[in-house]
Structures are given as structure tokens and as C-alpha cells.
């Protein structure tokens, strides 16, 4: 009997076993796959080398150290046309992260509002939100970016309308000017001591979390319910305001000044039209997707949960906070994070409206000026790959933490 169940070891290894024996067949297949991979890479690499030699090119990253020679109108770090290409790429990286961050924040707000309103008992609101979601989901984001860019640059007035002693248009609250070159907002100016104010502000934000944690712990340990809302607000505002006045008001606002210049607004912070267009288009487009996730998440919590919580005597706000939201969030957050990833990747469409993100600097102007196509595109891909891997890693950590803990 053993001869049937046991493999015949005494015969040793025969070549035919590479095909007929399941133990070795996987080796055969992997050998073939490896061979195919090596052949393919060698073929492509050989073609690449031949073509590069014919074109008289080589692979070199020296261009990153040479002056870029072009200007970027919206930068968060010091940059001029004599800075290196690497510096220009950094400006692009920071601009990408900036627009991605802004768009993620506003897209979440749009999405949550629209998703909740889609479940409203109100017929008109429900249909209006469904219309919003369908219209924005079914038209390419590139078209939305171009449409909103056109609205900003064509429909909004030039900055001249705001200039002079007696302007045609009033700035909103005397602070915000909406022009076809972008939106002018007050810029914060920090003097000596401002770091203390910022530090106190950050400390009070941490303090709020500590306080909430303490309140929850107290509730679970003793059943005593501390108020959370007003104390949080107090912790947020009071120390910061106190320190602000103690330090002698180190942070002030630089308003856009309509009188300083005859042709343009001076002062303040100019948020350029491309950034506005990209930011708004990405958030409203992705907001429509997030709205669907939020709706699905809320619908995923069965009605019995609400009823059970009500039967336990919880009030509606606590039902939402303690029973529905924790369960809905488990459904909402993973697709939400992949939507954030989409925003980051879609921000590469900045090149269509001339916003200087990494695709427009490294993959656009630098590539065209230096002709280093392969190097630029590889670096560009590497950057996006790192960002996506970081975000997916974060998502995995979150998923593991949030996994249903079953016993």
C-alpha cells in the first residue's frame, strides 16, 4: 500500500518529473517565467541601449544640478530662475502636496455634506444632491479643471477693478479680492515671539485630545459624564489668545492694498488662478465620489443598531456618536483614503492649467529644456510611487487597527 501513497524515493530524480510531478512542476513553470522575464528585460534593455547610442544620448542625472532657467510663479520655498533643476523639482513636490492636501480637506467636506444630504427625508435636497453626484462623477475631471480655470480667468474681473481710491468693486470684508489672476487674501506676518504663540496653539490642540481621552476614561471607569464641547473650545482659544496679547501681538495680517500700485494689487497672499481651479475642481469632483462612499457607509449600518441603541435609552446624538458613526466609519474610511490617493494622482493634471506641480516642473519644463526624457519620467514616477506606497501603508495600519476584533 505504501507504494501507492508514498512517492517512489528510491528512483531518485528523473527529468520527466519536472512535468509530471506536481512537486517539481511549479519549479518548471517558475523557471520558464524567469527565463521569459530575463529575455524580455534583455530585449527591451538592448533596444534601449541601441536607440540611445544611435541618438547620441546617455543616462545621466547631472542635469539636476544645473540652473533651471525658468521662473515659477507660485512657490512656497525660495526659488528663482538661477536655482537648480532639483530645486525646481522640490518646488513642484511641495506644490503637489499643497494642492493635494487642500483638495483632500475640501473634498471631504463636500462629500460628507452631499452624502448625508442624499439620505435626507427632504425630496428636493435629495434629488439636488443626486444630480450633483451624477453630473460630477460622469464628466472627466480634466474638463472640470478646464471649466473652473476658465471661470476664474474669464468671468472674474481683473485686479484693476479693485484699485484706486474709489474702486468699482469692494473687496469682500475688505480682505478678499477675487480677480482673474487669482484670489488675494490677507497674509500673516510673524514677528519675534510668534513661534511661542504657534507652540501654545499646538499644545492646546494636544490638550483637547488629552482632555477628551480623560473624559472618556472617567465615563467608562466611574460613569461620570464630563462636558466636552465647551471646555474643548475654551482650551483651544483661551491660552492662545492670552499668549498672543502677552507677547505683544506678534502676528499681524498683511492686507491686499488697492492703493500701492496702479496696475495690480500689492501685499497679501495671492492664490493663483491655476491653484484655485485645480483645488476647487479636484475637491468638487472627488467630493461626488466621497458622497457615494459616505452614503454607502451610513446605509451599511443596519437599522437594528439604531433601534437597539434607542432601546438602551441613548439619545439621538449619542446614538450617532457611539453606535452609528464608529460602524459607518469602518466602511467609509478605506475608500476615502483611496480617494485621497486619487486626488494626489489627479493633481498631476495641474499641467493642463499651468500650476507648477511636480509634473509641470520636472515632467514638463525641465524635461523639455534638458531633453532628459527618461530620467525625468523615471523620477516623476518614483515620486508618485513613494506617495502611493506611503498612503497604502498608512491604510493598512488603519485597517489592522480597525479590524473587527472577533473572539
Amino acid at each position: 500500500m505504501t507504494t501507492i501513497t508514498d512517492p517512489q524515493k528510491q528512483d531518485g530524480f528523473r527529468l520527466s518529473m519536472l512535468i509530471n510531478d506536481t512537486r517539481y512542476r511549479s519549479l518548471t513553470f517558475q523557471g520558464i517565467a524567469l527565463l521569459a522575464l530575463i529575455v524580455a528585460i534583455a530585449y527591451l534593455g538592448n533596444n534601449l541601449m541601441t536607440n540611445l547610442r544611435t541618438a547620441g544620448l546617455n543616462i545621466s542625472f547631472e542635469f539636476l544640478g544645473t540652473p533651471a532657467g525658468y521662473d515659477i510663479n507660485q512657490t512656497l520655498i525660495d526659488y528663482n530662475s538661477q536655482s537648480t533643476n532639483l530645486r525646481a523639482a522640490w518646488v513642484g513636490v511641495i506644490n503637489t502636496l499643497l494642492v493635494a492636501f487642500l483638495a483632500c480637506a475640501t473634498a471631504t467636506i463636500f462629500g460628507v455634506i452631499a452624502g448625508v444630504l442624499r439620505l435626507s427625508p427632504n425630496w428636493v435636497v435629495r434629488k439636488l444632491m443626486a444630480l450633483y453626484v451624477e453630473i460630477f462623477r460622469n464628466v472627466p475631471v480634466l474638463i472640470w479643471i478646464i471649466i473652473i480655470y476658465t471661470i476664474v480667468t474669464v468671468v472674474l474681473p481683473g485686479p484693476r477693478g479693485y484699485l484706486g481710491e474709489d474702486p468699482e468693486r469692494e473687496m469682500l470684508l475688505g480682505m478678499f479680492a477675487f480677480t482673474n489672476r487669482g484670489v488675494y487674501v490677507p497674509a500673516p506676518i510673524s514677528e519675534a515671539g510668534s513661534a511661542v504663540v504657534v507652540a501654545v496653539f499646538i499644545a492646546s490642540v494636544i490638550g483637547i485630545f488629552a482632555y477628551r481621552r480623560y473624559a472618556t476614561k472617567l465615563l467608562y471607569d466611574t460613569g461620570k459624564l464630563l462636558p466636552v464641547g465647551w471646555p474643548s473650545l475654551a482650551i483651544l482659544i483661551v491660552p492662545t489668545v492670552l499668549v498672543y496679547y502677552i507677547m505683544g501681538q506678534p502676528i499681524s495680517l498683511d492686507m491686499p492694498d488697492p492703493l500701492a500700485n496702479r496696475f495690480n494689487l500689492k501685499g497679501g497672499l495671492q492664490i493663483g488662478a491655476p491653484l484655485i481651479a485645480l483645488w476647487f475642481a479636484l475637491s468638487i469632483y472627488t467630493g461626488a465620489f466621497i458622497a457615494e462612499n459616505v452614503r454607502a457607509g451610513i446605509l451599511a449600518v443596519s437599522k437594528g443598531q439604531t433601534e437597539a441603541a434607542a432601546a438602551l435609552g441613548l439619545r439621538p446624538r449619542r446614538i450617532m456618536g457611539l453606535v452609528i458613526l464608529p460602524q459607518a466609519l469602518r466602511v467609509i474610511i478605506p475608500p476615502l483614503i483611496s480617494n485621497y490617493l486619487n486626488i494626489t494622482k489627479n493633481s498631476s493634471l495641474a499641467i493642463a492649467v499651468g500650476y507648477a506641480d511636480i509634473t509641470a516642473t520636472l515632467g514638463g519644463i525641465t524635461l523639455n529644456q534638458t531633453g532628459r526624457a527618461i530620467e525625468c519620467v523615471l523620477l516623476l514616477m518614483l515620486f508618485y510611487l513613494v506617495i502611493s506606497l506611503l498612503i497604502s501603508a498608512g491604510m493598512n495600519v488603519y485597517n489592522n487597527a480597525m479590524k473587527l476584533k472577533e473572539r
Partner: protein
Amino acid sequence: MSDTHSESVAYVRESFIEEQPAPITAAGPFKWVKDNLFPTWLNGLLTIVALYIIYQLLAGFLPWFLGGVWTTGSLAECREVLQGEVGACFSVLTDRWHQLLFGFTYPSEFYWRPTLAFVLLFVALAPVLFFDLPRKMLIFTGLYPFIAFWLIWGGTIFAPLSALLGFVVGYLVYEKFVKSSFAAGFFGGIVAAIVIWTVGGWLIPENASENAMLTAVPSRDLGGFMLNMMLGITCVSLSLPLGIALALGRQSHLPLVKWICVVFIEFVRGVPLITLLFVANVMLAYFFPPGSGVDLFLRVVIMITMFASAYIAEVIRGGLAALPKGQYEAGDSLGLDYPQAMRLIILPQALKISIPGIVNVAVGLFKDTTLVSIISMFDLVGMIRGPILASTDWNGVYWELFLFASALFFVVCYGISQYSQWLERRLETDHR
């Protein structure tokens, strides 16, 4: 006692009251309005705000839309006709209709060819989309790619014919050998097809396209919405088999195969499509043998197909993971080998589960075909931003063109997603 009782108790009624209609607040449109528009004060306020927004939108849009001018030759003439009144200048659509659809270099005398290909597309897609139709129609679906290729690009008919012949011979070889071993059939089929194509390439003379029945049109002359449709349909259909292979590879027990698939999928999903299009535009040509002259359209198709197949692979992987383990074990216990189990048991069910996801990817991909305008191909968006808005006649006609482009994409994408929802309901009823 009883006597006084019957006299004094007034509420014992001896006859039925006539049936009354429900109060106006509890039935009919009034109740609907009350329940759906004004259930609470806050909600009522919301309704009024929403109605005001709708009113504002319509008040801005309708006069502009209905007052549109359709027949002038330039924006200046439009303004003359409108004389300061609000109205759209839709003349740009009628004037540049063919450019919007076919691009600005496609020879105008051949517009009937893509149009015919577009009409035939519905015939080819019908049996795929609606499986109540006779299965014989699938034969036409199989022929369609070659017909459409010939109609749009023109040139010698022998090129698509030899391609078709390669597929047919490959399939016959596969059928012959698959009985004994799947691998033999599969690889035998591929080898046979490649042999036929190579021989076909030798046999077709170099100048066959010069006096062909349909004049050849080079790829760079394609444009407009036709380009979006072609890229979308080609890439989705090519990426389906690739996606299935990648998904199976990622599920595989062979570590090397698995890691190749994982690296490919994660790499492609991690970068934006626009960087892949940059690769197609400036880099991919270096990877082909010198002098092969692969044109931009084909390079873009290759990159978008790679992009779509990674996403489709993830969707199908979800479908594979959703199948109960018993299905895999059932296949094993029936004595089926891996290809048989996959073909007969696992994939039909997994693909069925994945259909909504695949449709989502297809819609997303179709929208993303507009990105080719960034690498200066003149698709619908490229046409609008390039030749049309830059022309002196139509410089400044933004909204009409954008409305048209959005409407086209909306109709197609919304249609597909509605179809997918119908299919989901349909498959669900089949399942139970």
C-alpha cells in the same frame, strides 16, 4: 337601569357614518409635500434654499440655452444676431461639428467610414451587453475589430484579413490540443497565430496600401470624440484578458509569478495615468527595435491598456477572493486540473461578481482618455482647447464647447453606469 342607560349614553351610535375622504393633510399631493418637503421647520428652510438654488441655476441657464444661435459663421456674427441679448452661440457646434467628432485632419470625404464603424459598434456590442440576443451574433462581434480597423484606417484589406486568419488558426490549433493539455493548446495556438502573422507580413507587398479599396489614413489624422471612443473601447477590451491573467497570477502559488504580477500591478496603480502617457510620448519609442516606427496612437494604446489591466486585475482579484473556498475545493475533488478548474468553475463565477467593478473601471478609463490632450493628441478636449478656441472665428466661445463635451461624456458614462446597475439586478435574480 338599562332604560336610563340607553337614554342617557349619547355615544352609542346606531348607524355607520358615511365614509369620508381622508383629510387633505393626510393623503394626496398635500401629504406628499408635507412629508417630503416640509417635515420639520429646518427641513422646510432647506427646501426653500434648495428651490432658490435651482431657480437661480435655471434662471441663468435657460435663457442662455434657449436663446442660442445655431447658424452663424463666427462669434462676431453671433454677437450681431444676438444684439446684446443673452444667448448661447451654438453655431460653433454646427460649424465645427465634424472637427469635434473626427479631428481636424481626418479626410472629410471619408467621414462615412468612422460613422459606419460607430453604427456597427452597437451591433457588435449588443450580444455582449444583452445575453438574450441570439448567440450567433457573437460571430459578428469577433469580426468587428478587424472591420472597424479596416474602415477607420483604410489601406489594404489583407492586413486585417491576415490578422483575423492568425486568430482563427490559433483558435483551431487551441481547440485541437486543449483536449490533451491546456498548456499545449494555449501555447500551440499562440505559436500558430504568430506564424500566420509573420507569413502574412511577408506576403503582403509593401505598396499594397497605395491603390487599396479604402484609402489609407495615418493614425496621426485621427482626432475628436472618435479618438476618445477608440481609445476607450480598444483599451478596455484589450485589458480584460490581461487583467484576468494578472489577477490569476497574483493569486498564484508560484512565488515568482506572484511577485512579477504584484510588482506590475502596484507599480501601475501607484503612478498617475499622465506619467504613463509621458512614457508613451517620450520614452516608449526607445524600447522598440530601431526603425520599427511604432506610432503615437499605438504607444498610447499600449500604456493605457497596461494602466487599465492593473485596475481590472484588482477588481477580478476581489471577485476571486469573494468566491467561497468550497468552489476551489469542489474543482479539485472533481479531479480538474488548474486550467480546467479556472475555466469551468472559478472564473465564470468570479467574473460575474466583478462585473460592476469592471464597468466602473471602464467608465473611469473612458473619462481618462481625455488626458491624451495633454500629450498633444487632438481628442475632443484637445480639439476644443487647440484648433477651435485658437481660431479667430471662435476665440472666446468657452461655455458652449465645454457644455457639449461634458454632455457627450455624461451621456456615455451615465448610460454605462445605468446599464451596469440593470445588469447587477438581473444577475442577482439569476443567481437565486
